[in-house]
């Protein structure tokens, strides 16, 4: 009988751990978001939704995601295609491309701060080239769109690597014969990419898009490093309510909003990019 119990014993620590530290806290968040001093209430949500910052916070986060993720997808596809074609120096290039994978979002924010701050490298270059006379204040509240651009650049710079790694491993699974067959039928490089690579990459694209979209909804440290509180995003407001305004219930309501849009986007990608039955490699 011990043979039969062994797999369950091995799974027990991980299952218990995930129940206590994953399932239970998320239930807690849901409870917190609907409770007040007198029990069940919708007050946290009302406080959140009627706060003057909420609309901008939500639209900033969604807009950032809607811009960042597609750029990353295109960039990662180009990087993965380059790596697939390389013969010499493949490993070096691949390592360089994956470097940002190991960096924290806070580090990425600080790195791009070095470029965008008033006495930073971008201003040095612009003045050096004679394009502007004096250094400009890029990251002030007068230039909200510039903070936006800086956050987009920093996020694209940092998190494209993970998409590329997933796509490179996905491309490695596509049988060479498919490309040879396409070539025999006269398909050029672009045709081969759109008719063989992209459809065969579906599962990898799905994983990459789910991971990245959720992470993009969680954008936090990059925004704080580059814009302070000038550009409010959902995760930043959650933090703000938890600490500066010390209202756990409203913070939980914000958390629930992030959770709901995350799950909605996951379901969306699971549905749109599902692999047709019997079409696996």
């Amino acid at each position, binding site marked *: 009988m011990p043979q039969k119990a*062994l*797999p369950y014993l091995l799974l027990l620590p991980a299952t218990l*751990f995930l129940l206590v530290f*994953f399932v239970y806290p998320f239930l807690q968040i849901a409870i917190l978001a609907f409770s007040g001093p007198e029990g069940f209430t919708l007050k946290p949500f009302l406080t959140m939704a009627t706060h003057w910052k909420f609309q901008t916070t939500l639209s900033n986060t969604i807009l950032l995601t809607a811009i960042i993720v597609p750029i990353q997808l295109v960039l990662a596809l180009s990087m993965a295609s380059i790596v697939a074609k390389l013969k010499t120096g493949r490993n070096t290039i691949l390592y360089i491309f994956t470097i*940002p994978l190991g960096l924290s979002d806070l580090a990425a924010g600080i790195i791009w701060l070095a470029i965008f701050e008033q006495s930073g490298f971008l201003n040095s270059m612009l003045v050096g080239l004679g394009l502007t006379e004096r250094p400009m204040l890029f990251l002030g509240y007068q230039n909200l769109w510039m903070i936006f651009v800086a956050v987009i650049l920093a996020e694209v710079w940092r998190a494209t690597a993970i998409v590329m*790694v997933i796509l490179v491993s996905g491309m490695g*699974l596509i049988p060479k014969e498919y490309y040879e067959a396409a070539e025999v039928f006269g398909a050029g490089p672009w045709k081969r990419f759109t008719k063989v690579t992209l459809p065969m990459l579906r599962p990898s694209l799905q994983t990459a898009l789910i991971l990245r979209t959720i992470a993009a909804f969680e954008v936090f440290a990059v925004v704080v490093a580059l814009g302070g509180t000038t550009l409010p995003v959902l995760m930043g407001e959650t933090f703000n309510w938890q600490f500066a305004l010390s209202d756990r219930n409203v913070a*939980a309501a914000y958390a629930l909003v992030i959770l709901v849009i995350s799950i909605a986007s996951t379901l969306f990608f699971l549905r749109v990019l599902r692999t047709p039955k019997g079409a696996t490699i």
Partner: protein
Amino acid sequence: MSVAVATDVPRPVAEINAAGKFVFIAGTVLLCAWVLVPIYLLVVNTLSSPQEVSAFPKTGIPSFDFGSLQFFLNFSGVARALWNSVLVAVLTMVLSIGIGAPAGYALSRFDFRGKATFRMLVLMTRAFPLPLLALPLAVMFIRVGLDDTAIGLALVHTTLAVPFAVLITFSIFAGIPIELEEAAWTLGCNRLQAFQKVVLPLVLPGITASAVFAFTISWNEVFAASVLTVENRTLTAFLLQSLSVSPMHLKFAGGAALVLPALIFIFAVRKYLFAMWGIASR
């Protein structure tokens, strides 16, 4: 052979090929620069004196002055934050492998009822913004006395790392043929001995790689660290909370301190990254 082929190709095609090759190489160089130049600029700022960091215009060449770094390392709270970061990351590493590896082994070796349910639970963690867990756990930790402790934060970071540990160790164990274990059993080993003597030496490098990955996840995490620590801040939490008040040179030196270990670790596990993500995307 190749020379003969080259002369056979009509000229226009050769020109198109040459142009295509140029675009390809230029694109590759450009993308490498896109990744490397920002890191270089951070290094320039880190290796300049505090005066040079706030000076304008910048030359883009480091003066190899260690003033900023010294200021950072002597700044009150930095040494402790560095130590806390290492401590939490090591605890995360040990916990996530200790919890994840047995599960990965079970998934790779046994067929049992509930296997699909367990896989579903692990995969589901991906659809959730995990750092948010810190909010309710902050309350729970105060109740059980784990608030503001390294182990408390490590438990949250383990939640982030465990799904990866399970999936990665699953793929590593699945790569070891079960016949090797069976051979050891017939030679008189019991299950545990066979695992120790045959499987463990083979999987050790892969397990190390996923442990390093868990370390990096914890080292880089900002949100949960900032929510759960007050006195015992990790480096990320310390930097985040002092962002609005600290001088520029402190930020850049701190950023460099965050980047350096991560660079080394990614280099150390580069061989395993693709195998890891290849299987993680199934």
